[in-house]
Protein backbone atom coordinates (compact mmCIF):
# COMPACT_ATOMS: atom_id res chain seq x y z
CA UNK A 1 0.00 0.00 0.00
CA UNK A 2 1.22 3.48 -0.80
CA UNK A 3 2.03 5.70 2.14
CA UNK A 4 0.77 8.76 0.31
CA UNK A 5 -1.19 8.90 -2.92
CA UNK A 6 -1.91 12.34 -4.29
CA UNK A 7 -3.98 12.68 -7.45
CA UNK A 8 -4.30 16.03 -9.21
CA UNK A 9 -4.99 18.08 -6.13
CA UNK A 10 -5.78 21.72 -6.48
CA UNK A 11 -6.24 24.48 -3.90
CA UNK A 12 -7.92 27.78 -4.64
CA UNK A 13 -8.31 30.54 -2.07
CA UNK A 14 -11.18 32.85 -2.80
CA UNK A 15 -11.67 36.20 -1.12
CA UNK A 16 -13.83 39.21 -1.94
CA UNK A 17 -10.87 40.84 -3.66
CA UNK A 18 -9.46 37.99 -5.73
CA UNK A 19 -8.94 34.30 -6.29
CA UNK A 20 -5.54 32.69 -5.82
CA UNK A 21 -4.62 29.27 -7.15
CA UNK A 22 -2.01 28.24 -4.59
CA UNK A 23 -1.82 24.65 -5.89
CA UNK A 24 -2.78 24.14 -9.53
CA UNK A 25 -2.21 20.46 -10.14
CA UNK A 26 -0.06 18.29 -7.91
CA UNK A 27 0.23 14.51 -8.11
CA UNK A 28 2.76 12.16 -6.55
CA UNK A 29 3.04 8.84 -4.78
CA UNK A 30 5.20 8.01 -1.80
CA UNK A 31 6.16 4.45 -0.88
CA UNK A 32 6.22 3.40 2.76
CA UNK A 33 9.58 3.92 4.44
CA UNK A 34 10.99 6.51 2.07
CA UNK A 35 11.87 10.15 2.48
CA UNK A 36 10.07 12.18 -0.13
CA UNK A 37 11.13 15.78 -0.68
CA UNK A 38 8.99 18.59 -2.07
CA UNK A 39 11.52 21.11 -3.34
CA UNK A 40 10.59 24.61 -4.37
CA UNK A 41 10.84 28.30 -3.57
CA UNK A 42 8.60 30.20 -1.18
CA UNK A 43 5.13 30.51 -2.63
CA UNK A 44 5.48 27.45 -4.88
CA UNK A 45 2.64 25.61 -3.13
CA UNK A 46 4.67 23.19 -1.00
CA UNK A 47 3.24 24.19 2.37
CA UNK A 48 -0.30 24.40 1.01
CA UNK A 49 0.11 20.85 -0.32
CA UNK A 50 1.28 19.68 3.11
CA UNK A 51 -1.59 21.47 4.85
CA UNK A 52 -4.06 19.66 2.60
CA UNK A 53 -2.43 16.28 3.22
CA UNK A 54 -2.41 16.84 6.98
CA UNK A 55 -6.16 17.67 6.92
CA UNK A 56 -5.64 21.28 7.96
CA UNK A 57 -6.86 22.66 4.63
CA UNK A 58 -9.61 21.33 2.42
CA UNK A 59 -8.79 20.13 -1.09
CA UNK A 60 -10.52 22.20 -3.78
CA UNK A 61 -10.24 19.49 -6.44
CA UNK A 62 -8.59 16.09 -6.80
CA UNK A 63 -8.01 13.49 -4.10
CA UNK A 64 -5.38 12.32 -1.66
CA UNK A 65 -5.06 9.36 0.64
CA UNK A 66 -2.74 8.44 3.48
CA UNK A 67 -2.20 4.68 3.85
CA UNK A 68 -5.37 4.24 1.79
CA UNK A 69 -7.43 6.57 4.03
CA UNK A 70 -9.08 9.47 2.26
CA UNK A 71 -7.79 12.78 3.53
CA UNK A 72 -10.99 14.72 2.91
CA UNK A 73 -13.62 12.34 4.21
CA UNK A 74 -11.71 10.53 6.97
CA UNK A 75 -9.65 13.32 8.45
CA UNK A 76 -9.77 12.06 12.05
CA UNK A 77 -8.43 8.63 11.02
CA UNK A 78 -5.71 10.30 8.96
CA UNK A 79 -4.60 12.41 11.94
CA UNK A 80 -4.10 9.26 13.97
CA UNK A 81 -1.59 7.96 11.41
CA UNK A 82 0.45 11.10 10.88
CA UNK A 83 2.88 13.28 12.76
CA UNK A 84 3.06 16.92 11.79
CA UNK A 85 5.73 19.57 12.30
CA UNK A 86 4.76 22.61 10.30
CA UNK A 87 6.63 25.85 9.75
CA UNK A 88 4.08 27.79 11.73
CA UNK A 89 2.95 25.26 14.30
CA UNK A 90 3.66 26.87 17.60
CA UNK A 91 5.32 25.73 20.74
CA UNK A 92 4.13 27.07 24.07
CA UNK A 93 7.13 29.10 25.18
CA UNK A 94 5.98 29.41 28.80
CA UNK A 95 6.03 25.67 29.40
CA UNK A 96 9.11 23.49 29.83
CA UNK A 97 10.09 20.89 27.26
CA UNK A 98 9.11 18.17 29.72
CA UNK A 99 5.68 19.70 30.34
CA UNK A 100 5.05 20.00 26.62
CA UNK A 101 5.91 16.36 25.97
CA UNK A 102 3.84 15.23 28.95
CA UNK A 103 0.79 17.30 27.88
CA UNK A 104 1.05 16.03 24.31
CA UNK A 105 1.40 12.42 25.50
CA UNK A 106 -1.71 12.83 27.66
CA UNK A 107 -3.64 14.29 24.72
CA UNK A 108 -2.61 11.29 22.64
CA UNK A 109 -4.16 8.99 25.20
CA UNK A 110 -1.22 7.83 27.32
CA UNK A 111 -1.98 7.46 31.02
CA UNK A 112 0.10 9.43 33.50
CA UNK A 113 2.83 6.85 34.10
CA UNK A 114 3.14 5.97 30.39
CA UNK A 115 3.24 9.69 29.60
CA UNK A 116 6.14 10.14 31.99
CA UNK A 117 7.96 7.20 30.41
CA UNK A 118 7.33 8.36 26.85
CA UNK A 119 8.35 11.93 27.77
CA UNK A 120 11.69 10.64 29.02
CA UNK A 121 12.22 8.54 25.88
CA UNK A 122 11.45 11.43 23.55
CA UNK A 123 13.57 13.92 25.47
CA UNK A 124 16.48 11.52 25.06
CA UNK A 125 15.65 10.88 21.42
CA UNK A 126 15.83 14.55 20.47
CA UNK A 127 18.71 15.30 22.84
CA UNK A 128 16.83 17.61 25.18
CA UNK A 129 17.13 15.71 28.46
CA UNK A 130 19.48 18.32 29.91
CA UNK A 131 17.10 21.15 28.99
CA UNK A 132 13.92 19.28 29.96
CA UNK A 133 13.06 21.50 32.91
CA UNK A 134 13.84 24.78 31.20
CA UNK A 135 11.07 26.89 29.71
CA UNK A 136 11.00 26.63 25.94
CA UNK A 137 11.53 30.38 25.55
CA UNK A 138 15.14 29.81 26.64
CA UNK A 139 15.75 27.21 23.88
CA UNK A 140 17.80 27.98 20.78
CA UNK A 141 16.26 27.72 17.31
CA UNK A 142 17.79 24.28 16.81
CA UNK A 143 16.51 23.03 20.15
CA UNK A 144 13.00 24.26 19.33
CA UNK A 145 13.08 22.42 16.00
CA UNK A 146 14.18 19.23 17.73
CA UNK A 147 11.45 19.70 20.31
CA UNK A 148 8.94 20.25 17.49
CA UNK A 149 10.12 17.06 15.80
CA UNK A 150 9.89 15.16 19.08
CA UNK A 151 6.34 16.39 19.70
CA UNK A 152 5.31 15.12 16.28
CA UNK A 153 6.64 11.66 17.23
CA UNK A 154 4.74 11.21 20.51
CA UNK A 155 2.26 8.69 19.09
CA UNK A 156 4.86 6.87 16.93
CA UNK A 157 3.28 7.97 13.64
CA UNK A 158 3.69 5.87 10.51
CA UNK A 159 4.00 8.98 8.35
CA UNK A 160 5.73 12.18 9.29
CA UNK A 161 5.16 15.53 7.57
CA UNK A 162 7.91 18.09 8.05
CA UNK A 163 7.45 21.53 6.55
CA UNK A 164 10.84 23.18 6.04
CA UNK A 165 12.28 21.52 9.13
CA UNK A 166 15.66 23.22 9.00
CA UNK A 167 14.84 26.70 7.72
CA UNK A 168 16.79 29.26 9.70
CA UNK A 169 19.06 26.74 11.42
CA UNK A 170 22.83 26.91 11.49
CA UNK A 171 24.69 24.15 9.58
CA UNK A 172 25.48 22.19 12.74
CA UNK A 173 21.87 22.10 13.93
CA UNK A 174 20.74 21.27 10.42
CA UNK A 175 23.07 18.27 10.30
CA UNK A 176 21.76 17.00 13.67
CA UNK A 177 18.19 17.19 12.39
CA UNK A 178 19.09 15.49 9.11
CA UNK A 179 20.65 12.59 11.01
CA UNK A 180 17.52 12.28 13.12
CA UNK A 181 15.25 12.28 10.06
CA UNK A 182 17.37 9.59 8.40
CA UNK A 183 17.29 7.53 11.57
CA UNK A 184 13.49 7.75 11.59
CA UNK A 185 13.37 6.61 7.97
CA UNK A 186 15.59 3.67 8.90
CA UNK A 187 13.06 2.65 11.57
CA UNK A 188 10.34 2.49 8.92
CA UNK A 189 8.77 5.92 9.23
CA UNK A 190 7.75 7.51 5.95
CA UNK A 191 8.85 11.13 5.83
CA UNK A 192 7.42 13.81 3.55
CA UNK A 193 9.34 17.02 3.85
CA UNK A 194 9.30 20.34 2.11
CA UNK A 195 12.46 22.32 1.63
CA UNK A 196 13.85 25.22 -0.30
CA UNK A 197 17.39 23.98 0.25
CA UNK A 198 18.83 21.99 -2.65
CA UNK A 199 21.47 20.47 -0.44
CA UNK A 200 18.83 19.25 1.99
CA UNK A 201 16.78 17.60 -0.74
CA UNK A 202 19.93 16.03 -2.20
CA UNK A 203 21.15 14.76 1.16
CA UNK A 204 17.90 13.53 2.64
CA UNK A 205 15.30 12.67 0.05
CA UNK A 206 15.08 9.26 -1.57
CA UNK A 207 12.88 10.90 -4.18
CA UNK A 208 12.21 14.53 -4.97
CA UNK A 209 9.36 16.42 -6.60
CA UNK A 210 10.27 19.89 -7.78
CA UNK A 211 7.27 22.14 -7.36
CA UNK A 212 6.92 25.55 -8.95
CA UNK A 213 3.93 27.85 -9.21
CA UNK A 214 1.60 25.16 -7.92
CA UNK A 215 2.73 22.47 -10.35
CA UNK A 216 5.07 19.48 -10.10
CA UNK A 217 7.62 20.23 -12.82
CA UNK A 218 9.97 17.26 -12.25
CA UNK A 219 10.06 14.14 -10.11
CA UNK A 220 12.54 11.38 -9.45
CA UNK A 221 15.57 10.41 -7.41
CA UNK A 222 18.31 12.98 -7.17
CA UNK A 223 20.42 10.94 -9.64
CA UNK A 224 17.53 10.53 -12.05
CA UNK A 225 16.85 14.25 -12.04
CA UNK A 226 20.51 15.07 -12.61
CA UNK A 227 20.75 12.50 -15.39
CA UNK A 228 17.66 14.01 -17.03
CA UNK A 229 19.65 17.09 -17.93
CA UNK A 230 22.11 15.00 -19.93
CA UNK A 231 25.82 15.73 -20.24
CA UNK A 232 28.09 17.88 -18.13
CA UNK A 233 28.09 21.48 -17.02
CA UNK A 234 31.04 23.59 -18.19
CA UNK A 235 31.62 26.77 -16.20
CA UNK A 236 33.66 29.61 -17.72
CA UNK A 237 34.87 32.46 -15.49
CA UNK A 238 35.76 35.93 -16.74
CA UNK A 239 37.47 38.99 -15.29
CA UNK A 240 35.64 41.75 -17.16
CA UNK A 241 32.07 42.59 -18.13
CA UNK A 242 33.26 43.14 -21.69
CA UNK A 243 34.61 39.60 -21.97
CA UNK A 244 31.49 38.02 -20.55
CA UNK A 245 29.24 40.01 -22.90
CA UNK A 246 31.28 38.95 -25.93
CA UNK A 247 31.42 35.34 -24.73
CA UNK A 248 27.64 35.24 -24.37
CA UNK A 249 27.31 36.09 -28.06
CA UNK A 250 29.40 33.00 -28.89
CA UNK A 251 27.96 30.63 -26.27
CA UNK A 252 24.32 31.25 -27.06
CA UNK A 253 22.97 28.42 -24.88
CA UNK A 254 24.79 29.62 -21.79
CA UNK A 255 23.38 30.95 -18.52
CA UNK A 256 25.16 33.80 -16.79
CA UNK A 257 25.64 33.92 -13.08
CA UNK A 258 27.74 36.79 -11.76
CA UNK A 259 31.02 36.61 -13.74
CA UNK A 260 30.45 33.05 -14.93
CA UNK A 261 28.81 31.44 -17.92
CA UNK A 262 27.49 27.89 -17.61
CA UNK A 263 26.68 25.62 -20.49
CA UNK A 264 25.39 22.02 -20.50
CA UNK A 265 26.88 19.72 -23.13
CA UNK A 266 27.57 16.03 -23.68
CA UNK A 267 31.09 14.91 -22.70
CA UNK A 268 32.08 18.34 -21.37
CA UNK A 269 35.76 17.67 -20.68
CA UNK A 270 36.51 16.82 -24.31
CA UNK A 271 34.78 19.95 -25.57
CA UNK A 272 36.61 22.44 -23.38
CA UNK A 273 39.63 22.88 -25.73
CA UNK A 274 37.35 23.70 -28.65
CA UNK A 275 35.41 26.31 -26.67
CA UNK A 276 38.63 27.86 -25.33
CA UNK A 277 40.07 28.10 -28.82
CA UNK A 278 36.91 29.80 -30.08
CA UNK A 279 36.85 32.28 -27.19
CA UNK A 280 40.54 33.19 -27.29
CA UNK A 281 40.35 33.62 -31.08
CA UNK A 282 37.66 36.22 -30.46
CA UNK A 283 40.01 38.04 -28.08
CA UNK A 284 38.16 36.97 -24.96
CA UNK A 285 40.21 36.25 -21.86
CA UNK A 286 38.91 33.26 -19.89
CA UNK A 287 40.20 33.28 -16.31
CA UNK A 288 39.18 29.69 -15.53
CA UNK A 289 37.15 26.83 -16.90
CA UNK A 290 35.82 23.63 -15.30
CA UNK A 291 33.59 20.74 -16.27
CA UNK A 292 31.34 19.04 -13.70
CA UNK A 293 28.41 16.71 -13.43
CA UNK A 294 25.04 18.51 -13.11
CA UNK A 295 23.84 19.35 -9.62
CA UNK A 296 20.30 19.60 -8.35
CA UNK A 297 20.80 23.33 -8.71
CA UNK A 298 21.32 22.81 -12.46
CA UNK A 299 18.22 20.61 -12.60
CA UNK A 300 16.17 23.29 -10.90
CA UNK A 301 17.44 25.89 -13.33
CA UNK A 302 16.67 23.63 -16.25
CA UNK A 303 13.07 22.87 -15.25
CA UNK A 304 12.05 26.24 -13.86
CA UNK A 305 14.27 28.67 -15.72
CA UNK A 306 15.67 30.26 -12.56
CA UNK A 307 17.85 29.36 -9.62
CA UNK A 308 16.36 28.37 -6.30
CA UNK A 309 19.04 29.57 -3.93
CA UNK A 310 20.61 32.97 -4.51
CA UNK A 311 17.82 33.81 -6.91
CA UNK A 312 18.22 37.42 -5.94
CA UNK A 313 21.73 37.36 -7.30
CA UNK A 314 22.26 38.17 -10.93
CA UNK A 315 21.10 35.40 -13.20
CA UNK A 316 21.18 36.98 -16.58
CA UNK A 317 18.87 35.97 -19.32
CA UNK A 318 20.16 34.18 -22.32
CA UNK A 319 18.09 32.84 -25.18
CA UNK A 320 17.95 29.50 -23.38
CA UNK A 321 16.74 30.76 -20.03
CA UNK A 322 14.26 33.07 -18.44
CA UNK A 323 15.21 35.59 -15.83
CA UNK A 324 15.77 34.41 -12.30
CA UNK A 325 13.01 35.42 -9.90
CA UNK A 326 13.88 36.75 -6.55
CA UNK A 327 11.81 34.66 -4.17
Amino acid at each position, binding site marked *: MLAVDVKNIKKTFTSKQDTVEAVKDVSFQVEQGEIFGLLGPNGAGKSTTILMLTT*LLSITKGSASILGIDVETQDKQV*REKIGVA*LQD*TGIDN*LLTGKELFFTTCRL*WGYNKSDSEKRTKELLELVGLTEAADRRVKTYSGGMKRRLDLGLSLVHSPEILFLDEPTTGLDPGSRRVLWDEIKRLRDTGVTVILTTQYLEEADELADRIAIIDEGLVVAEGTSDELKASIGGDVITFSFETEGDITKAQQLLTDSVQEKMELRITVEDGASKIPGYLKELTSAGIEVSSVAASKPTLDDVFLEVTGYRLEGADDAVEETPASTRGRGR
Partner: protein
Amino acid sequence: MESNRSFLTQLQILTKRLLLRVIRRPLAELPNIFISAFFLFVYDGALGGVFGGSAQGTPFDFANGNFVNFILPVSIVSASVSGGASGIYLVEDIESGVFKRYQSMPISKWAIILAPMLVGALRVLLQAGLIMVIGKIIGADPAVGAVGYFMVLSIAFLWGMGFAGYSVAAGVRSGSSQGAQAASFLFFPALFLAPTFVPREALRGWLATASAYNPTTYVIESMRAIMVDGWITDVISKGYIAAGSFAAITLTFAVISAGKATEKA
Protein backbone atom coordinates in the same frame (compact mmCIF):
# COMPACT_ATOMS: atom_id res chain seq x y z
CA MET B 1 -2.00 4.88 17.93
CA GLU B 2 -5.46 6.26 18.55
CA SER B 3 -6.27 9.20 20.74
CA ASN B 4 -8.87 7.63 23.02
CA ARG B 5 -9.34 10.54 25.35
CA SER B 6 -12.87 11.68 26.03
CA PHE B 7 -13.87 15.27 25.36
CA LEU B 8 -13.83 16.09 29.07
CA THR B 9 -10.36 14.65 29.57
CA GLN B 10 -9.05 16.61 26.60
CA LEU B 11 -10.68 19.74 28.04
CA GLN B 12 -9.09 19.06 31.42
CA ILE B 13 -5.60 18.57 29.93
CA LEU B 14 -5.84 21.70 27.81
CA THR B 15 -7.21 23.73 30.72
CA LYS B 16 -4.34 22.59 32.91
CA ARG B 17 -1.87 23.73 30.23
CA LEU B 18 -3.45 27.19 30.14
CA LEU B 19 -3.48 27.41 33.92
CA LEU B 20 0.25 26.74 33.86
CA ARG B 21 0.57 29.67 31.48
CA VAL B 22 -1.42 31.88 33.88
CA ILE B 23 0.76 30.82 36.81
CA ARG B 24 3.89 31.55 34.78
CA ARG B 25 2.74 35.12 34.20
CA PRO B 26 1.65 36.27 37.67
CA LEU B 27 2.24 39.93 36.84
CA ALA B 28 -0.51 39.76 34.24
CA GLU B 29 -3.01 39.03 37.02
CA LEU B 30 -2.07 41.95 39.22
CA PRO B 31 -3.46 45.03 37.41
CA ASN B 32 -7.09 43.91 37.49
CA ILE B 33 -6.89 42.76 41.12
CA PHE B 34 -5.19 46.02 42.01
CA ILE B 35 -7.84 48.17 40.28
CA SER B 36 -10.67 46.23 41.88
CA ALA B 37 -9.13 46.51 45.35
CA PHE B 38 -8.36 50.17 44.64
CA PHE B 39 -12.05 50.87 43.94
CA LEU B 40 -12.98 49.23 47.21
CA PHE B 41 -10.47 51.07 49.37
CA VAL B 42 -10.75 54.48 47.71
CA TYR B 43 -14.54 54.60 47.56
CA ASP B 44 -14.86 53.29 51.07
CA GLY B 45 -12.27 55.78 52.29
CA ALA B 46 -13.82 58.73 50.44
CA LEU B 47 -17.53 58.02 50.85
CA GLY B 48 -17.79 55.48 53.64
CA GLY B 49 -17.61 58.13 56.36
CA VAL B 50 -20.63 59.92 54.90
CA PHE B 51 -22.89 57.18 53.57
CA GLY B 52 -21.88 54.59 56.08
CA GLY B 53 -21.77 56.88 59.09
CA SER B 54 -23.08 60.41 59.29
CA ALA B 55 -25.92 59.78 56.85
CA GLN B 56 -27.55 57.31 59.20
CA GLY B 57 -31.14 58.20 59.89
CA THR B 58 -31.30 60.44 56.79
CA PRO B 59 -32.70 59.64 53.30
CA PHE B 60 -29.07 59.16 52.16
CA ASP B 61 -28.56 56.14 54.39
CA PHE B 62 -28.82 53.71 51.45
CA ALA B 63 -25.92 51.65 52.78
CA ASN B 64 -27.74 50.76 55.99
CA GLY B 65 -24.74 51.93 57.96
CA ASN B 66 -22.19 49.68 56.18
CA PHE B 67 -20.77 51.33 53.07
CA VAL B 68 -18.41 48.39 52.38
CA ASN B 69 -21.51 46.26 51.75
CA PHE B 70 -22.78 48.90 49.36
CA ILE B 71 -19.59 49.46 47.36
CA LEU B 72 -18.24 45.87 47.37
CA PRO B 73 -20.41 44.87 44.35
CA VAL B 74 -18.67 47.56 42.26
CA SER B 75 -15.29 46.00 43.01
CA ILE B 76 -16.64 42.49 42.41
CA VAL B 77 -18.04 43.53 39.03
CA SER B 78 -14.67 45.11 38.27
CA ALA B 79 -12.86 41.89 39.21
CA SER B 80 -15.17 39.80 37.07
CA VAL B 81 -14.01 41.57 33.92
CA SER B 82 -10.92 39.37 34.27
CA GLY B 83 -12.91 36.75 32.37
CA GLY B 84 -12.02 38.84 29.32
CA ALA B 85 -8.61 37.15 29.36
CA SER B 86 -10.22 34.10 27.74
CA GLY B 87 -10.13 35.68 24.32
CA ILE B 88 -6.51 36.66 24.78
CA TYR B 89 -5.55 33.07 25.66
CA LEU B 90 -7.33 31.72 22.59
CA VAL B 91 -5.96 34.32 20.19
CA GLU B 92 -2.45 33.83 21.58
CA ASP B 93 -2.76 30.14 20.74
CA ILE B 94 -4.03 30.92 17.24
CA GLU B 95 -1.34 33.56 16.62
CA SER B 96 1.47 31.35 17.90
CA GLY B 97 0.37 28.29 15.91
CA VAL B 98 -0.30 26.19 19.03
CA PHE B 99 -3.94 25.98 17.95
CA LYS B 100 -2.86 24.54 14.60
CA ARG B 101 -0.72 21.94 16.31
CA TYR B 102 -3.74 20.73 18.28
CA GLN B 103 -5.90 20.84 15.17
CA SER B 104 -3.50 18.44 13.47
CA MET B 105 -4.20 15.94 16.26
CA PRO B 106 -7.37 13.88 16.59
CA ILE B 107 -8.73 15.97 19.45
CA SER B 108 -11.93 17.97 19.66
CA LYS B 109 -11.82 21.49 18.28
CA TRP B 110 -14.37 22.45 20.92
CA ALA B 111 -12.06 21.30 23.71
CA ILE B 112 -9.41 23.65 22.30
CA ILE B 113 -11.89 26.54 22.16
CA LEU B 114 -13.60 25.92 25.51
CA ALA B 115 -10.39 25.47 27.53
CA PRO B 116 -9.52 29.20 27.50
CA MET B 117 -13.09 30.05 28.45
CA LEU B 118 -12.87 27.70 31.39
CA VAL B 119 -9.60 29.28 32.49
CA GLY B 120 -11.28 32.69 32.17
CA ALA B 121 -14.04 31.42 34.45
CA LEU B 122 -11.56 30.18 37.04
CA ARG B 123 -9.78 33.51 36.86
CA VAL B 124 -13.06 35.33 37.56
CA LEU B 125 -13.74 33.14 40.59
CA LEU B 126 -10.23 33.66 41.90
CA GLN B 127 -10.17 37.43 41.47
CA ALA B 128 -13.74 38.05 42.62
CA GLY B 129 -13.16 35.69 45.54
CA LEU B 130 -10.02 37.57 46.52
CA ILE B 131 -11.84 40.91 46.47
CA MET B 132 -14.60 39.38 48.55
CA VAL B 133 -12.05 38.24 51.14
CA ILE B 134 -10.62 41.76 51.24
CA GLY B 135 -14.19 43.10 51.62
CA LYS B 136 -14.85 40.72 54.48
CA ILE B 137 -11.64 41.80 56.22
CA ILE B 138 -12.62 45.48 56.05
CA GLY B 139 -16.16 44.89 57.26
CA ALA B 140 -18.46 43.43 54.60
CA ASP B 141 -21.33 41.42 56.07
CA PRO B 142 -24.09 40.19 53.73
CA ALA B 143 -27.61 40.99 54.84
CA VAL B 144 -28.76 37.51 53.74
CA GLY B 145 -26.07 35.78 55.79
CA ALA B 146 -22.93 33.88 54.79
CA VAL B 147 -24.69 32.33 51.80
CA GLY B 148 -24.60 35.84 50.34
CA TYR B 149 -20.90 35.50 49.57
CA PHE B 150 -21.60 32.51 47.34
CA MET B 151 -24.56 34.22 45.74
CA VAL B 152 -22.52 37.32 44.89
CA LEU B 153 -19.72 35.09 43.61
CA SER B 154 -22.12 33.15 41.40
CA ILE B 155 -23.49 36.35 39.84
CA ALA B 156 -19.92 37.57 39.33
CA PHE B 157 -19.09 34.26 37.67
CA LEU B 158 -21.94 34.60 35.17
CA TRP B 159 -21.05 38.23 34.53
CA GLY B 160 -17.38 37.31 34.02
CA MET B 161 -18.33 34.57 31.58
CA GLY B 162 -20.21 37.21 29.62
CA PHE B 163 -16.97 39.13 29.27
CA ALA B 164 -15.15 35.89 28.45
CA GLY B 165 -17.55 35.23 25.58
CA TYR B 166 -17.30 38.80 24.37
CA SER B 167 -13.50 38.74 24.37
CA VAL B 168 -13.32 35.37 22.58
CA ALA B 169 -15.69 36.60 19.87
CA ALA B 170 -13.87 39.93 19.53
CA GLY B 171 -10.49 38.16 19.50
CA VAL B 172 -11.23 35.57 16.85
CA ARG B 173 -13.10 38.05 14.68
CA SER B 174 -10.31 40.61 14.80
CA GLY B 175 -7.65 37.88 14.74
CA SER B 176 -5.55 39.70 17.31
CA SER B 177 -5.04 39.70 21.04
CA GLN B 178 -5.59 43.48 20.95
CA GLY B 179 -9.10 42.75 19.69
CA ALA B 180 -9.63 40.41 22.60
CA GLN B 181 -8.47 43.09 25.02
CA ALA B 182 -11.30 45.28 23.74
CA ALA B 183 -13.42 43.62 26.43
CA SER B 184 -11.86 45.91 29.00
CA PHE B 185 -12.95 48.98 27.01
CA LEU B 186 -16.55 47.81 27.19
CA PHE B 187 -16.22 47.50 30.92
CA PHE B 188 -15.81 51.16 31.89
CA PRO B 189 -18.96 52.56 30.24
CA ALA B 190 -20.82 49.48 31.46
CA LEU B 191 -19.71 50.15 35.03
CA PHE B 192 -20.22 53.89 35.15
CA LEU B 193 -23.52 54.09 33.26
CA ALA B 194 -25.00 52.31 36.24
CA PRO B 195 -25.88 53.14 39.87
CA THR B 196 -22.24 52.76 40.82
CA PHE B 197 -22.03 55.22 43.72
CA VAL B 198 -25.66 55.87 44.62
CA PRO B 199 -28.94 53.95 44.18
CA ARG B 200 -30.72 54.27 40.83
CA GLU B 201 -33.41 56.48 42.38
CA ALA B 202 -30.76 59.12 43.01
CA LEU B 203 -29.63 59.24 39.39
CA ARG B 204 -31.22 61.81 37.12
CA GLY B 205 -31.60 62.81 33.48
CA TRP B 206 -29.88 60.83 30.76
CA LEU B 207 -27.84 58.77 33.24
CA ALA B 208 -31.01 57.48 34.88
CA THR B 209 -32.34 56.46 31.45
CA ALA B 210 -29.04 54.89 30.35
CA SER B 211 -28.71 52.92 33.57
CA ALA B 212 -32.18 51.44 33.09
CA TYR B 213 -30.98 49.86 29.81
CA ASN B 214 -27.60 48.77 31.18
CA PRO B 215 -27.52 45.15 32.41
CA THR B 216 -24.71 46.11 34.79
CA THR B 217 -27.33 48.05 36.76
CA TYR B 218 -29.28 44.89 37.54
CA VAL B 219 -26.14 42.95 38.42
CA ILE B 220 -25.02 45.62 40.88
CA GLU B 221 -28.52 46.04 42.32
CA SER B 222 -28.82 42.31 42.78
CA MET B 223 -25.51 42.08 44.62
CA ARG B 224 -26.49 45.11 46.75
CA ALA B 225 -29.76 43.50 47.67
CA ILE B 226 -27.83 40.48 48.91
CA MET B 227 -25.27 42.58 50.77
CA VAL B 228 -27.39 45.50 52.06
CA ASP B 229 -31.12 44.82 51.96
CA GLY B 230 -31.68 41.06 52.38
CA TRP B 231 -33.95 38.66 50.51
CA ILE B 232 -35.55 40.94 47.92
CA THR B 233 -36.06 38.10 45.49
CA ASP B 234 -37.25 40.04 42.43
CA VAL B 235 -34.20 42.33 42.54
CA ILE B 236 -31.84 39.40 43.18
CA SER B 237 -33.33 37.31 40.39
CA LYS B 238 -33.04 40.22 37.91
CA GLY B 239 -29.28 40.20 38.54
CA TYR B 240 -29.06 36.49 37.77
CA ILE B 241 -31.19 36.96 34.66
CA ALA B 242 -29.12 39.93 33.43
CA ALA B 243 -25.76 38.22 34.04
CA GLY B 244 -26.98 34.85 32.78
CA SER B 245 -28.45 36.37 29.62
CA PHE B 246 -25.27 38.34 28.96
CA ALA B 247 -23.21 35.17 29.37
CA ALA B 248 -25.56 33.08 27.21
CA ILE B 249 -25.58 35.62 24.39
CA THR B 250 -21.85 36.32 24.30
CA LEU B 251 -20.83 32.68 24.78
CA THR B 252 -23.10 31.62 21.92
CA PHE B 253 -21.61 34.38 19.81
CA ALA B 254 -18.11 33.28 20.87
CA VAL B 255 -18.67 29.63 20.02
CA ILE B 256 -20.12 30.51 16.60
CA SER B 257 -17.28 32.97 15.87
CA ALA B 258 -14.56 30.61 17.06
CA GLY B 259 -16.08 27.73 15.12
CA LYS B 260 -16.16 29.77 11.93
CA ALA B 261 -12.68 31.19 12.41
CA THR B 262 -11.18 27.74 12.86
CA GLU B 263 -13.01 25.98 10.06
CA LYS B 264 -10.89 24.34 7.37
CA ALA B 265 -10.32 26.88 4.59
